[in-house]
């Protein structure tokens, strides 16, 4: 039963996931932590961190959440729910895309969605900080990460490794 609920909750979310699965972090937190109490804040943060350290598309954080809620069936249900509705939409739309690409309403939606995605991703970042109850050391890491990521071409994986190492020291 929980698998079915998970499937429909995530399928609904996938239809507003402008900016990809990353943009859904605040709403996924609401669904799995606040509404259904499937996990606590700390676990949500941990799963997000694990997804950061794993290879693959961003959507895998959804897989991990599903796994934690209902094991293998939950992982598959959550992942399929996140991918299926829009995959089907694009399967049906692709042949007509050239017909409406460049139309005024299509350009308007593309332009209009961009700032919403920015807001969602920013909200996702504040949500992680809140859920993890970051102290000053964590905020220092956040600031340093923003700076290095924007100012250098260093691969983010190195930052993740470094963050894990600093975390191991117990200061964060």
């Amino acid at each position, binding site marked *: 039963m929980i698998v079915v609920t998970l499937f429909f909750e995530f399928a*609904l979310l*996938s*239809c*507003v996931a*402008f900016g*990809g699965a990353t943009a*859904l972090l605040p709403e996924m937190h*609401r669904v799995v932590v606040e509404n259904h109490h499937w996990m606590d804040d700390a676990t949500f943060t941990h799963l997000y*961190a*694990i997804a*950061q*350290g*794993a*290879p*693959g*598309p*961003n959507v*895998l954080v959804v897989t991990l959440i599903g*796994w*934690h809620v209902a094991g293998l069936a939950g*992982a598959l249900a959550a992942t399929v729910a996140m*991918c299926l509705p*829009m995959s089907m939409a*694009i*399967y049906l*739309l*692709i042949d007509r895309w*050239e017909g409406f690409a460049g139309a*005024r309403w299509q*350009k*308007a*939606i*593309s*332009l*209009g*969605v*961009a*700032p*919403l*995605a*920015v*807001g969602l*991703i*920013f*909200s996702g970042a*504040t949500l992680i900080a809140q859920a*993890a109850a*970051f102290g000053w050391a964590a*905020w220092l*890491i*956040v600031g340093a*990460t*923003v700076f290095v990521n*924007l100012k250098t071409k260093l691969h983010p*994986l190195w930052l*993740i490794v470094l*963050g894990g190492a600093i*975390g191991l020291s*117990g200061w*964060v």
Partner: protein
Amino acid sequence: MSAAATPESQNRPDLRALFLAFSSVGLSGFGGVLPFARRMLVEERKWLTAEEFNALLGLCQFLPGPNVVNLAVVVGKRYQGALGAIVAPVGLLSGPMLVVFGLAMLYERYGSLPVVQDMLRGIAAVGCGLLFAMAWRMGLAIKSKAAFLPFAVLVVAAIAWLRWPMPWVMLAGLALSGGLAYVRLGRS
């Protein structure tokens, strides 16, 4: 997309090739694999020209959901129809999912250890910083910032502060922000 300009006729991948190629893409990147998908599709396998890739990506970003999964569906459909549209995204996701299952099992077993929790908090802090940086970069890419960035601020207020439900916020936001874009497109 004229037929003569596409490399379709020279190398038309079968289901196996689609599965393997997208599997390698799925396992190559951390925090997003789109650049690897582009390299594979355009430069290595030449399944799409650069122009085709950009056009398809436009559609994949136009729709919500994971862009790179949508892209796999489109490429799969193009070369192997409905089966291809299933096999390509499954290839993309199955490798990373196995890795994630392994990590999830490790977490279930060792996740309660303080040392593991400390490490994950450090990684979460980096992940949080990467999200802020991503939002910043996406914000910089927006044209006519004075008109559209206020909508980003409204979304943050509604989602992060007021905690309003996202589907309604997105519908309202899309109506306002898309409506403004529609009006502005008409004027220029």
